[in-house]
C-alpha cells in the first residue's frame, strides 16, 4: 500500500492484510514495554487542519510505539494560520523527508492532493465529509474480533449520514467485507443517491432495527437543527436514538465518538454490555500501527507467507528511554 486515501481504493485482500498486521501488533500492546524499533530513524508528519482527539492521539502513539520520529502540526499556531497554502506547507514539510504524512483536512480530496505533491506515503485521517479510512479499518477490526468474519452480517448505520465521513468509509468497508448495510436516518440527513452510490439499503424508519446484528450510531451535531435538517434534537432523539428500548440483547453497538449522550445514544447503552465503543478506541491504536507499517515498511521488508511480521517485531529487543 503506497497511500491510504480512501476505502473506495481498497479491495478485500488489502483490508485483510491490515487486519492481520494489526493482530501481530496487538501482542506488542500486551507487553511491559510497548515499543518496537520497526520504524526507528524514519520520520512521520502528522498534520491536522481540524480538531481531533482520538485520531491524532492514536496515530501519534502508534508512530511512537513503532519508534518513528514524529512531527505533529496543528493548524492553530502554525504558518497555516498565516495563510500558507496546503501545497506550500507540504513542500516545506517534504524538505524534512518524511516517509509518511498523516493529514486531516476539512476539505474533501485534500489527502489525495497531498499525495500528488510529496514522495511520502499519505494517510487520510479525514478529509471533509468524504472519507475517514482508518476509522473504517479499525471498525472492521473491532467487528472481526467479535465475529471472526463479518460476511453476511447486517449492519445498520443510524443518524446523520449526510455530514459523516465515517458513515461513507464504514459503509464502503463493510460492503467490501461482505456485510449488508442499511442507512437509517431522516430523509434530510441521507444524501440523495446514497443507496446506489454506497450499494446500501436506505430507510427512514427505525422500527425494523431489530434485524441488525450491529448498530453503528453516528454523531448528531447540535447545529443541524438551525440549518433545518431536523426540527429539534428532541424530535431526532425520539425518532432515532438508540436506547435500551431499541437495542436488543444480541445486538452490538458502535459509535465513532465523540458521543452526544442523550441524543443519538442513551447513557445506559453507551456503558452497557453490548457496547463496543471502548474496543473501537483500543483497535484504533493497533490498526493505525498496522497502517503506518504497511505504508512505511510493508513494501521493502521481507515478509513471511503467513503474513506474520519478521522476527524483530515478534521478539523485539526492548529499548529504553531515549538518552
Amino acid at each position, binding site marked *: 500500500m503506497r497511500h491510504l486515501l480512501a476505502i*473506495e481504493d481498497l479491495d478485500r485482500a488489502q483490508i485483510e492484510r491490515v487486519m492481520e498486521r494489526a493482530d501481530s501488533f496487538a501482542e506488542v500492546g500486551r507487553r511491559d514495554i510497548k515499543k518496537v524499533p520497526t520504524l526507528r530513524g524514519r520520520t512521520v508528519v502528522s498534520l491536522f487542519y481540524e480538531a481531533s482527539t482520538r485520531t491524532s492521539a492514536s496515530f501519534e502513539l502508534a508512530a511512537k510505539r513503532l519508534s518513528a520520529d514524529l512531527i505533529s502540526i496543528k493548524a492553530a499556531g502554525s504558518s497555516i494560520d498565516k495563510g500558507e497554502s*496546503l*501545497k506550500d506547507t507540504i513542500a516545506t514539510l517534504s524538505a524534512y523527508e518524511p516517509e509518511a504524512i498523516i493529514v486531516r483536512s476539512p*476539505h474533501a480530496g485534500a489527502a489525495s492532493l497531498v499525495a500528488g505533491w510529496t514522495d511520502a506515503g499519505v494517510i487520510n485521517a479525514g478529509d471533509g*465529509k468524504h472519507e475517514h479510512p482508518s476509522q473504517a479499518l479499525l471498525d472492521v477490526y473491532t467487528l472481526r474480533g467479535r465475529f471472526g468474519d463479518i460476511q453476511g452480517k447486517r449492519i445498520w448505520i443510524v443518524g446523520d449520514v449526510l455530514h459523516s465521513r465515517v458513515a*461513507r468509509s464504514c459503509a464502503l468497508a463493510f460492503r467490501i467485507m461482505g456485510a449488508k448495510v442499511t442507512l437509517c436516518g431522516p430523509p434530510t440527513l441521507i444524501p440523495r*443517491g446514497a443507496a446506489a452510490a454506497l450499494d446500501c439499503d436506505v430507510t427512514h424508519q427505525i422500527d425494523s432495527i431489530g434485524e441488525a446484528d450491529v448498530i453503528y450510531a453516528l454523531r448528531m451535531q447540535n447545529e443541524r437543527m438551525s440549518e433545518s435538517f431536523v426540527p429539534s434534537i428532541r424530535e431526532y432523539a425520539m425518532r432515532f436514538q438508540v436506547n435500551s428500548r431499541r437495542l436488543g440483547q444480541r445486538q452490538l453497538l458502535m459509535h465513532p465518538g465523540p458521543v452526544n449522550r442523550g441524543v443519538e445514544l442513551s447513557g445506559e447503552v453507551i456503558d452497557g454490555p453490548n457496547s463496543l465503543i471502548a474496543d473501537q478506541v483500543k483497535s484504533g491504536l493497533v490498526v493505525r500501527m498496522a497502517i503506518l507499517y504497511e505504508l512505511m515498511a510493508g513494501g521493502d521488508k521481507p515478509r513471511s507467507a503467513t503474513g506474520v511480521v519478521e522476527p524483530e517485531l515478534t521478539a523485539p529487543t526492548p529499548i529504553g528511554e531515549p538518552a
Partner: protein
Amino acid sequence: MTDRPISSLDWRGAGQRPRDLILREASVLDPRAGIDAQHDIVIRDGRIAGLASPGSAELDGAEVIEAGGLTAVPAFFDPHVHLRTPGREDKEDIETGSRAAAAGGYCGILGMANTQPPVDTAGAIESLRERAGEDACVPVGFLATVTRGMKGDELTDMAELIDVGAVGFSDDGLPIRSARVMRRALQYQRMAGAQIALHEEDPELSGAGVMHEGEVSALLGMEGVPSISESTMIARDAALALYEDARIHVQHLSARESIEVVARAKDAGIQITSEATPHHLTLTDEAVRALDSRFKMNPPLRTEDDRQALIDALRSGIVDCIATDHAPHAAEEKEVPFEQAAMGVTGLETAFAVIHTDLIVPGILDLGTVIDRMSAGAIAFGFELPSMSPDSEAHIALLDLDAEWEAGADGWESRSHNSCFAGRKLRGRCQVTIAAGHVAFRQRSFALGVAT
C-alpha cells in the same frame, strides 16, 4: 430591432480596410444559407464578394490562401466569455482572451461584467471599448451588470450604458436573487433595450454546493447543487418575462429540468433564448470522482441523463447556441482541495474540437447543426449571424476536420491553463480565422505550410 454587424464591435481591425483575399478550393458549408459545395471564396473590402467555381477566382492584389481539404464555415460567436479585465489581468486580458477566441475560430465574443470591480458604469464601458480598440484580435463586446456592484439591489444606469455601447446586461456569476429587482430590470428593458443574460441559480437551494447533487456527490460526501436550483429560477424568470413582455437569455443550461422549463416557455411564446457549454455537452459528474479541480465549474457537470437531454435540446433548437463560459483562473486558485477551488474552465481554444471529437465524429450531432449553434449566439444579442452568402461581412473559420492534436500540447493562447480538456487527443482544428475580412489568426503550422 435590426441586427447590428459584428464589425461594429471594438477591435484592432475596426475602421481599417483589410487586404482582399481568395480562399481557394475550400469546402464551403453554411447550413442556414443552404451552401454545401467546393468554391473559391472571394473577399473584397471585408465582405464576401462571391463564391466562384474551384480554382477559377482571380482578384488583383488579393492574398491567396490555399484552402483545399479545409472546410470554410461561418466563424463562431461566443456570447459568454470572461476576459477578467479590469482587475484580474493576471488571469486574462482583452488581448490574450481575444487571441484565444481567434485561435478557436471565433469572429466575435462578448465579455461578462463580473470583473473587479464589476462593469456597472458608463466610464467602465468606455474604457473597455477603448482598450478593445487597441488590443482585441477579434471584435469584442462588453456587457454591463444588471445591478450596481452585482449586489442585486439597485439597477445600473441601463439606458446610459446602452448609449455608451454596452451590448447587454448580466450579473453572470451570480443570480438576481430578488424577484422584485428582476422584474424592474425587465420592465426597464422596454425602454433601454438590449438583452438580459441570466445566470440561473437559487442560492438558497445551491447552498455551499460544489458539484452536482447525485450519486457521485453522495459517494464523495460533497455538498451538491441540486438541478432544481437552476430550473426553479428559470421558471421564475420565464414567468416574469411573459408578464412584462420582456426577453431573456438563459446562460449555461445544465439540467434536464431546466431544459423542460425552457421548452415550455418557448412553446408559450416567451422571448427566451438559451445556451449550453461544450463541457456540459461532453462531460458528466463522473469526471469529478477523482476530485480534480479542473472539473469544477458553476453550474456543475451533471449526469449522463442531463447531458443527453442537453444534446437533444441543442439538436432541436431549444438550446439556441453553444457558449463556452470561458473562465480563466490562476494555477494557485485550482491547486487546492476541490471544495476550495475556483469555479470555471477555459474553453475558447477547444470548443469546436471537443464537440467535433465527442459529438460529430461519432455521429451524435451533424456538422451543420453544430456550425449553426456555434455562431447563433450572435442572434440572441442582436448581431448579424455570420454567413457565407455573398455580400455578408467576411467572418470565416477554416477548419481542418481531420487534424489530430492534443489540447494544450503546444501551449495556450489564453493566459490561463485551466482547461478541463488539457491533454485530450482531439480531432478537428481551426487553421485560419477571418473576422470582417481580416486574417485574425493562422495556426502556426498552417502559416508555415506544414502538415498537422
